[in-house]
C-alpha cells in the first residue's frame, strides 16, 4: 500500500501516516526551489509552515533538509525565519547537511539589513555542530563589532553558544576579553547584560582549570564592576535587573555604610510589579544584612508587605513561588509574622499545594496570643470536603498542641474531632491524641474517656489503629474494656494486614497483661501463638522474644515492656538546622520551593548560580583584597558599633545550634566575614602571590573603564562620580535609615526622583 520511498511524486497526499505526507512535501518544495514565479513566496510559506508544524508535533522531517536549504534563497524575512528555525532543529543530527547551510548563513551575515545579519548569526551559532566551529569565528568577530545593537546582542550570546560547542575555539579567539570590553563600554544595556550572562557562564566553567579565568570571575564581583552595574540598574530591562541583583548579592561590601548605600539605592525595587525583581532584591537585602542582626530583622519587617502583595496579585503559580519564600522566612522567624496569621488562612478555592504551605505557616506562627483563633480556623478546615487538606489541618492542630504550654483548649478541640464520626478525622485525631499523651501524660484521663468510646471497628487506617492499640496497652488500667478489645482484635489476627499494627498489638497485650493479668492471660496466649506463627519476620521475632523473656522471668519481662516512662519533651525535628540554613543561603532558587538544598536535586554541573556561591569565601578574598583595605579589623569595629553584640555573641549566633532565629547569620554564608579573613590568612601562606595579583586584575578593569589610575584608592574606585549617591539625599547613616524603614512604603517613591 505504501509507495516506495524513492518515488516521492507518487505518494498520495491523503496518506494518513506522516511519512507519505513528508515525502509529498519534499517534492513540492523541490518544485518551488528554483521557481521565481510571482506568488511563489506565499506557496513556500504554506509549505514551510507545514514542515514546522510536523516538526513541532514530533514527526521527523529531516529528510527535506536539502530542499529547505534550496528554498532559503529568498528575500522574504518570514520565510527566512522559518528556515532558520528548521535548520537549527535538525543541523545537529545531520552534520553533513548542516555544511550546506553554512554558505547561505555566512552570506546573510553580511546582509545590509541588520535584522537579517542578526538572524543569520543567531542561526549559525545555533547549529551545534562541532566541526563547523571554524566558520563561526569570523562572523562572530564581525558581529561583536557591528554597529547595530541587535546584531551585537545576538553575537554576545553567539559567543556563549560557541563556548558550549568548542570551549577552546572560543577562548583562543579571545572572545571572553572582547565581551569584557563590551560589557564595560557598550551603550546598549542589553548588550551589557548579555555580556555579563555569558562571562559568568564562561568564567565559572573555566575557573576550575584556568587561574586566569577564576581571577576574572572574581573581578566580576569587584567593587568597580558591581557599582558600574548598580548605578545603571534602572536602564536595564526588568530581567537584566534580576541579573544585576544576583551579581550584587554575591558582592561583599567593605563596611556597613556601603551596605546601607546599596540598600538605599535599591529599595524602590521592592515596589516592582515583577516578582522576580522583588525576590532578587530581597535576597540581596537578606544577604547584605546577615552580619547586622537588628537590621536583618528590619529587613524581614520591610519585605512583609511587598511579599504579601505579590502573593495576592499574580497567578496562582506565581503566588506559589512567592509564598514558598514567605514560608521559608516564616519558618525562620515565626515571631515576626505572628500578628499576620490571618494572611495564612486558606481560601476555599486555592490549590492544595498552596493550602499545605499555609497550614505549615499557621502552625509555625501560633503563639500564646493567637493560638485560639488559629485553632478555631483550623477546625473549620477539618470538616472540609477536601480530605487531604482536612487531614493536614488536624495534624496542624496537633502540632500546635505539641508546641504550646497551655494546651487546655486544644485538647478539647482534638477530642471533638474524635466525636465527628468521620473516618479520616477520627484516624488523624487518634494519632494526635497518642502523641499528645506521650508529651502530656497528665491529660490521660480526659483523653482516655473519649478514646474509650471509639469502636475499634471504625478505625481502619493502620497508623490510627496502631495509635489506638498503643493507648489500649498504655492505659489498660483506666480503660475498662481494654483487655476485651485487645482480645477481639487478636481474634482477627489473620485479617490484620499491617505488620506494624500486629507489632503494636503484641506489645499492648503484654502491657495489659502486667496490669490486669487474669483478664488478659487468655488473650496473651493467643497473641503469642499467633505471633510465633506469623510470616512476618519482625512480628515473629518479637513474639518469640516476649515468649522467652516471660519464660525466663516475669518481673524482668515487666521491666522490659512496662518501664516507667518519661514524657517526651521534644519530638525529633525532621530537618536539621544546617539544612535549613543551607536553603536560606539559596534564597530565590528552587531549593526554597522544594525545601531541599540544591545538592539534593541537581547534578554538580547544573548547580548554576550556586556553584558560584559555593566558593563565596574565596571570592570575597578577591573582592576585599582588591579593595586594598585591612578589612577584618574594620569589620569588627563596624559590627560592634551597629550591633550592640559582642563578637562572641555573634559567634554563637552563627553556630549551627541556633535555629529559626530571624537574625541568625547562617553558618554558611553569613560567616563570609570571618571565613574570608581566615581564608585570607591561609591563602597568603599558601599562595603569597594572590594579593599582588588581584590589584593587577583590578587595574585591568580600571583601564577598561578608562581610568588611568596608578593606584587603587580604596574609597573611590568608581568610574561614575554619582556612584551610590543617585539619591539626592546624603547617604543616610544607619540610624536615619532605620527610621526611614518604619515609614509608610509610599514615601519611598521619592527615590525615583
Amino acid at each position: 500500500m505504501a509507495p516506495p520511498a524513492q518515488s516521492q511524486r507518487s505518494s498520495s497526499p491523503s496518506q494518513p501516516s506522516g511519512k507519505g505526507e513528508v515525502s509529498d512535501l519534499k517534492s513540492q518544495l523541490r518544485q518551488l526551489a528554483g521557481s521565481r514565479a510571482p506568488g511563489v513566496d506565499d506557496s513556500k510559506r504554506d509549505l514551510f509552515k507545514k514542515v514546522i508544524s510536523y516538526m513541532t508535533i514530533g514527526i521527523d522531517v529531516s529528510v527535506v533538509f536539502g530542499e529547505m536549504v534550496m528554498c532559503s534563497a529568498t528575500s522574504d524575512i518570514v520565510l527566512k525565519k522559518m528556515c532558520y528555525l528548521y535548520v537549527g532543529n535538525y543541523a545537529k543530527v545531520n552534520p553533513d547537511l548542516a555544511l550546506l547551510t553554512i554558505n547561505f548563513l555566512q552570506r546573510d551575515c553580511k546582509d545590509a539589513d541588520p535584522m537579517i545579519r542578526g538572524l543569520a548569526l543567531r542561526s549559525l551559532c545555533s547549529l551545534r555542530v562541532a566541526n563547523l566551529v571554524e566558520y563561526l569565528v569570523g562572523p562572530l568577530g564581525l558581529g561583536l563589532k557591528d554597529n547595530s545593537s541587535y546584531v551585537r546582542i545576538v553575537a554576545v550570546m553567539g559567543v556563549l553558544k560557541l563556548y558550549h560547542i568548542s570551549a577552546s575555539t572560543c577562548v583562543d579567539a579571545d572572545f571572553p576579553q572582547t565581551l569584557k570590553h563590551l560589557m564595560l563600554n557598550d551603550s546598549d544595556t542589553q548588550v551589557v547584560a548579555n555580556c555579563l550572562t555569558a562571562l559568568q557562564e564562561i568564567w565559572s566553567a573555566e575557573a576550575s582549570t584556568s587561574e586566569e579565568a577564576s581571577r576574572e570571575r572574581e573581578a566580576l564581583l569587584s567593587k568597580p564592576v558591581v557599582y558600574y552595574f548598580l548605578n545603571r540598574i534602572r536602564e536595564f530591562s526588568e530581567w537584566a535587573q534580576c541579573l544585576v541583583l544576583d551579581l550584587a548579592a554575591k558582592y561583599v561590601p567593605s563596611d556597613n555604610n556601603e551596605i546601607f548605600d546599596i540598600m538605599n539605592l535599591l529599595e524602590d525595587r521592592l515596589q516592582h510589579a515583577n516578582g522576580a525583581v522583588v525576590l532578587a532584591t530581597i535576597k540581596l537585602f537578606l544577604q547584605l544584612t546577615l552580619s547586622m542582626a537588628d537590621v536583618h530583622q528590619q529587613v524581614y519587617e520591610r519585605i512583609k508587605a511587598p511579599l504579601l502583595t505579590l502573593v495576592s496579585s499574580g497567578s496562582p503559580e506565581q503566588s506559589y513561588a512567592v509564598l514558598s519564600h514567605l514560608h521559608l522566612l516564616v519558618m525562620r522567624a515565626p515571631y515576626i509574622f505572628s500578628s499576620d496569621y490571618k494572611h495564612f488562612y486558606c481560601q476555599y478555592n486555592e490549590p492544595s499545594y498552596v493550602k499545605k504551605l499555609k497550614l505549615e505557616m499557621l502552625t509555625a506562627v501560633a503563639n500564646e496570643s493567637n493560638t485560639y483563633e488559629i485553632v478555631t480556623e483550623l477546625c473549620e478546615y477539618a470538616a472540609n470536603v477536601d480530605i487531604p487538606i482536612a487531614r493536614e489541618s488536624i495534624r496542624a492542630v496537633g502540632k500546635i498542641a505539641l508546641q504550646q504550654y497551655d494546651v487546655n483548649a486544644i485538647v478539647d478541640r482534638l477530642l471533638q474531632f474524635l466525636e465527628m464520626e468521620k473516618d479520616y478525622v477520627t484516624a488523624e485525631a487518634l494519632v494526635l491524641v497518642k502523641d499528645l499523651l506521650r508529651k502530656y501524660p497528665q491529660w490521660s484521663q480526659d483523653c482516655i474517656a473519649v478514646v474509650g468510646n471509639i469502636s475499634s471497628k471504625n478505625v481502619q487506617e493502620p497508623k490510627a489503629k496502631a495509635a489506638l492499640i498503643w493507648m489500649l496497652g498504655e492505659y489498660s488500667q483506666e480503660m475498662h474494656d481494654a483487655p476485651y478489645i485487645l482480645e477481639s482484635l487478636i481474634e482477627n489476627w489473620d485479617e490484620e494486614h499491617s505488620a506494624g499494627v500486629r507489632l503494636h498489638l503484641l506489645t499492648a497485650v503484654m502491657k495489659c497483661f502486667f496490669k490486669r493479668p487474669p483478664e488478659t492471660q487468655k488473650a496473651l496466649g493467643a497473641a503469642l501463638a499467633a505471633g510465633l506463627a506469623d510470616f512476618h519476620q519482625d512480628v515473629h521475632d518479637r513474639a518469640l522474644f516476649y515468649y522467652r523473656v516471660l519464660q525466663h522471668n516475669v518481673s524482668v519481662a515487666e521491666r522490659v515492656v512496662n518501664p516507667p516512662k518519661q514524657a517526651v519533651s521534644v519530638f525529633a525535628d525532621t530537618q536539621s538546622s544546617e539544612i535549613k540554613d543551607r536553603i536560606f543561603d539559596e534564597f530565590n532558587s528552587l531549593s526554597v520551593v522544594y525545601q531541599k538544598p540544591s545538592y539534593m536535586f541537581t547534578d554538580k554541573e547544573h548547580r548554576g548560580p550556586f556553584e558560584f556561591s559555593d566558593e563565596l569565601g574565596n571570592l570575597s578574598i578577591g573582592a576585599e583584597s582588591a579593595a586594598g583595605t585591612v578589612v577584618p579589623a574594620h569589620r569588627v569595629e563596624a559590627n560592634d558599633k551597629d550591633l550592640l553584640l559582642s563578637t562572641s555573641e555573634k559567634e554563637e549566633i552563627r553556630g549551627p545550634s541556633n535555629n529559626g532565629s530571624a537574625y541568625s547569620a547562617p553558618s554558611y554564608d553569613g560567616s563570609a566575614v570571618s571565613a574570608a579573613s581566615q581564608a585570607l590568612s591561609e591563602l597568603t601562606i599558601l599562595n603569597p602571590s594572590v594579593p599582588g595579583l588581584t590589584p593587577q586584575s583590578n587595574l585591568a578593569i580600571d583601564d577598561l573603564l578608562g581610568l588611568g589610575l596608578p593606584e587603587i584608592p580604596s574609597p573611590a574606585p568608581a568610574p561614575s562620580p554619582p556612584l551610590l549617591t543617585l539619591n539626592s539625599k546624603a547617604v543616610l547613616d544607619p540610624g536615619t535609615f532605620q527610621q526611614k524603614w518604619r515609614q509608610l512604603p509610599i514615601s519611598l517613591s521619592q527615590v525615583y526622583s
Partner: protein
Amino acid sequence: MISQFFVLSQRGDNIVFRDYRGEVPKGSAEIFFRKVKFWKEDGEGDAPPVFNVDGVNYFHVKVAGLLFVATTRVNVSPSLVLELLQRIARVIKDYLGILNEDSLRKNFVLVYELLDEVIDFGYVKTTSTEVLKSYIFNEPIVVDAARLPSLGAAGLFMQGSKRRMPGTAVTKSVVANEPGGRKREEIFVDIIEKISVTFSSSGYILTSEIDGTIQMKSYLSGNPEIRLALNDDLSIGRGGSSIYDYGNSSGSGSVILDDCNFHESVHLDNFDIDRTLALVPPDGEFPVMNYRMTQEFRTPFRINALIEEAGPLKAEVILKVRAEFASSITANTILVQMPLPTYTTRVTFELEPGAVGNTTDFKEANKRLEWGLKKFVGGSEHTLRAKLTFSQESHGNIVKESGPISMTFTIPMYNCSRLQVKYLQIAKKSKTDNPYRWVRYVTQANSYVARL
C-alpha cells in the same frame, strides 16, 4: 536560564516546542504531561507549578486552558521562570488578540518568531510587546472572538456591559489593523478587584481582603504621556499597626491600601503630592499598579442559610442571598455552592415564584448543591429552598457535615475599595483627534465564603 519552552493543549499535544540548549531529553513534554495528569488521578490535587523529575525541573502555568511549560536542569529562581511564562502568554495574547488553543494553532509560526526574540540560549532578552514589534514580521491570523468563550479581564467586560463597551476592542491584536485600515485611537483602564471574604456562622466578617489591579491597554499612537489621578485621600501602609485592625478606619472615609506595587513605566514623582501616576504606556496589556487592602469594606452580598431537619431521613435547606449594593448596579454570573452531607441521595429545589434565569443542580459526584443566577439587581434578595433526602440517619450532624457556602460573581461598574481614577489625561498635541478613553470597574469574587 531555561532549557526548553513548550505549550501543551489540555490533551497534552505539543502546540509549540522550542529547545534552546539541548540539555533536556526530547521526551520531556510527555514526561511532564504524564506527571501532571497522574498527580490529579492520585488524589493529590493539582500538580504544583514546579517539580523535579530525574534532575529536570518542570515549571508550568495554566493560561486559557493551555499549559505553558519551561524546563531546566539549573537551580534557577522559580519566580523568574514562572513570571516569564506568564509574560510569554501575555505577549502572545497581545499579538494574537485572543489567546486560546485555536488561535495558537493558527499562529504558531508567529509564536515561534516571538519566542526567538524573547529568549536566546535560554536567557530572557525582552518580554516587552513594544520592543518586540520591530522584530516581528508575521501578520496574526485573527480568530473570531464572538464565537469563542472569552477569557480573562476582557471577557469580564463583555458580559452585561455591551451597551457601553465595544466588546471586541480589547481582544484586538496590537499589530493587526482595523478593517477600515485606520487604527482607532483608544485607551482602556480597568480597575479589577478580586475580593475574599469569610463570614462566620453568625454572620460576622472573619477576614476580608481586596486584591486589585489597575490594568491598562493602550492603542494610542505616538506614545503620549498619560496621567492617572487617583483618590486624593488615598493612603498607603498602615503605619505599623496590625493589618487586621478593624474599626479605626471605616469612619474616616479615606481609602487605605495595605501595600501596592507599580509597573516599570510608572513615574511616581507627583504621587506623594497629588496622587497621580505618570507613565508612557507601552503597547500591550499590563498592570499599572497592583494593590492590596484589608481595610473594612461593605460586602456586596449577605448569605443566610437555614437547615431544618424534617424527619430522620429528610432535611430542608433555605438559602437567602441579599445584594447590598445600589439598585442601579447589576451583578451577573452568580453561582452559589454548598457541599451537602455525603449520605444525601436526592435533592428537590423550590425557587421563588416568578424567578427567571435561575439554575439549580445537585452534583451527585461530590454531593454539592449549585444555584446559578444570571443577574442579581442591587438591593434585591433571592431565596432557594432545597429538600434533601438521606440514605441514612443524620444524627443531628447535618450542619457539621455540610457547607461552607461559597459564592462566585462578577459585578461590573462597581468596586469595593472605593479606589477611583479621578481623571485620565493624555498629553496629546492635536485637539481634533480626541482618543477614546475607557475607564471601567469590575469586582469579582475570589473566595467568598459563609460558614455554617
